[in-house]
């Protein structure tokens, strides 16, 4: 058995990713080190937000910095726990419809509760620290989403949507 060196991969993708391909590959590449737990988070576009129907959610990234930051998060989190075998992060960019996948976080780690903990923390960090931006087009207009909760109506200064 050679020493465990975690698999770290990050990407921005205009296309959906095959969970089956990534899962099979990670299981194949990590089981020999004693790994047996894969946690996947897949975000997808909500069809309804705040009572309004959503048409599209468009993602853009400040790409170089986004990729660098995603890799940094993955490396830092992998380094915190020895039995981390793989971290694979993919963020979608482009215009997506309700139900379309938006982000994928794959973590192989032991024991299983650590894999959940890592995936959850990595996801939070990606959402907060990576320069990726959303424009939500919904039945009451188009909104830029900023920070955790702020929506700003497109083209009208800093006006927020009406609550429904």
């Amino acid at each position, binding site marked *: 058995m050679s020493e465990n060196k975690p698999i770290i991969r990050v990407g921005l993708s205009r296309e959906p990713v095959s969970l089956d391909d990534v899962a099979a590959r990670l299981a194949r590449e990590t089981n020999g080190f004693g790994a047996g737990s894969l946690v996947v988070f897949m975000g997808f576009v909500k069809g309804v937000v705040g009572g309004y129907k959503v048409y599209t959610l468009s993602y853009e990234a400040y790409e170089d910095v986004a990729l660098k930051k995603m890799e940094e998060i993955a490396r830092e989190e992998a380094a915190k726990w020895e039995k981390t075998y793989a971290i694979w992060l993919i963020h979608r960019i482009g215009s997506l419809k309700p139900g379309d996948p938006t982000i994928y976080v794959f973590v192989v780690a032991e024991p299983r509760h650590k894999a959940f903990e890592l995936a959850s923390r990595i996801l939070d960090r990606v959402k907060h620290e990576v320069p990726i931006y959303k424009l939500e087009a919904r039945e009451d207009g188009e909104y830029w989403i900023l920070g955790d909760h702020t929506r700003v109506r497109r083209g009208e*200064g800093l006006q927020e949507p009406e609550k429904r």
Partner: protein
Amino acid sequence: MKVRVKLVSLLRDAVNGEGEVVVEINGEKARLRDVLEKLYSTYPRLKKLVEGLGERGLGVVYMVNGQGAELDAEVRDGDLVAILPPASGGCSFE
């Protein structure tokens, strides 16, 4: 000297939808604040937006060539500046 400034999200809307604008300044180097001042004089709506975001706790982050930068950072001909609002689903990245 010429500096490219990258703008995303609602800040791009405030410069007529251009993802990248070029700012020209006399001399061979400048402070980031000088670049921004020049940029804001061309796009006063951008300035108002950046200030408005700051007032809401959504302060922007400046980058020079992909590295976080303060307002008194040195900027040279050909550098790439970015003004980044908080990520969607987050608050800060540096």
